[in-house]
């Protein structure tokens, strides 16, 4: 598959994620949109890893070229999991105090 398709697809997902962050006010949904962005990156990385692997495999069948891309994705997933736990904890903490997950609800810190 031409790599450009993948890039375009990932970009599209990524931008949808960004738009989601921008248009929603629910902290959880915003967070989900961020996860969407991460997934777009994951997809892109896997695609690239296969592209480089494909390139290298032409000359050397046993190469592990491109494996680093996939491992990176693995680490992203790991980190994302950790981040989610902390993030949700923060959101829950806020919800406990103000009974809202609206990001604009708390607006004491400004100017």
């Amino acid at each position, binding site marked *: 598959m031409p790599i450009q398709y993948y890039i375009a697809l990932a970009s599209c997902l990524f931008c949808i994620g960004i738009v989601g962050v921008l248009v929603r006010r629910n*902290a959880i949904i915003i967070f989900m949109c961020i996860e969407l962005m*991460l997934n777009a*990156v994951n997809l892109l990385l896997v695609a690239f890893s296969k592209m480089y692997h494909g390139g290298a495999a032409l000359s050397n069948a046993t190469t592990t070229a491109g494996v680093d891309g996939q491992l990176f994705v693995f680490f992203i997933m790991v980190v994302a999991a950790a981040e989610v736990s*902390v*993030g949700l904890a*923060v959101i829950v903490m806020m919800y406990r*105090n103000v009974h809202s997950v609206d990001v604009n609800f708390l607006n004491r*810190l400004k100017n």
Partner: protein
Amino acid sequence: MNAIILSAIWGVVLMFCSVLIKNKGVYRHIAALGLLVILAGNIHETYHGSFFNIDTHEMLRFSRFGLFFNTILLAATLLYVLLSGRDVEKAGGYVAEYFTLIFFVLCGASILTSFNTLLMLFIGIEILSIPLYILTGSDKRNLRSNEAALKYFLMGAFSTGILLMGIALVYGGTGSFMLEVPRSAIMGGYKGVSFLEVTGLLFLLVAMSFKVSAAPFHFWTPDVYDGAPSVFTSFMATIVKAAAFAAFLKLFEARVGDTSAAVDWKLLLSIIIVSTLLIGNVTAVFQQSVKRMLAYSSIAQAGFMLFAVFSLNDVAKEGLLLYATAYSLATIGVFAVLIKMKDVTFEGFNGLARKNPVLAATTTICLLSLAGIPLTAGFFAKFSMLSAVIKTGTYTWLVVVAVLFAAVSAYYYFRVIQAMYFKEGDAQTEEVTGGFKVLLIAVAALVILFGVQPQALLNWFYF
């Protein structure tokens, strides 16, 4: 390696301490001890090699610069713990955990000074950030703290997304996560440089700018610094920021320095620098709270530190060392006093000099250093940044702008001095111990020592 491993271990030790030792007062001593150990380990590594023989597969590379930077960060943290350790106990109920997180942050910071692959950069940044989200929100009942934590977290996660996109594109362009990649002629776009890589680097630039709170990606800084418990703000504004800068410089030195033959990054960087200086300095002018003012001032200082990234030469590297030292010392000093203040607005400082001359005098020296007045470390910090830019030979106007904003910065720093010395008032402080004062004086003395003889620091770096 020593710093990374030891700080992780010490974090775990403190975790266990929270279970084993119930006396909260002990934690900071353990933390200080730990810092001493790590510091010793790091210095040992600087001159004699690591305790641990680990093959990192070139993912980490421990350069003299990185190790020295670690030393600075660790020393600053030690100072921080000694000065403000007691105040950590007031931030919330989980004192040992806070110290644990601080050690984890240090672990992340040491990764950032030594990473050699974008993967380690990513992990380092995350290890640096996640504990900070927690520390920011540690004052759980305080809505300001909640708000700060939420904002910090959401924006931090968003910037992680940007960072990862950048890394992915860079990988797409070069096929490697390593900082140094072999360049082949086949890469199209900009001569010898892949278009994707350049785009990716731009995303990385944005993400790193976010981490070092450069405008226009700085928005989290004032709110988070303001909302977080002061004692953690102090930590964030100094050690964490310095570490982020080390990473920024390292990343750009390798990747951007590599592409700069084909691509001119200077215009973008200059735009970022100018807007950082503008927003940081100008917005700080009108603040009513010293704490928030310091938040903006940290943005302004970031603008100056960005000159190191801008010029990417030896002077800049040395300059960043100096700057990180000077800035951390002074900020820790100012925050240590700020934490002791009952009222952190400017009015709250009125008449402090009469009430507590030692606090006022040391704060003044720290503020003078932040403003970059000669005879303080801040002067040489700014000085080397400016000379780094002038050495590059281009964009000389940038330094003029910087200098004008430095003058603006004098305005808000001196407002504090004016409040302390020249205005009548009844500044309320918490009890301060003699040891605290002695330490503050030591900080001030260091600020002046590095201001008179920065060579003292640099000699150490070279030998």
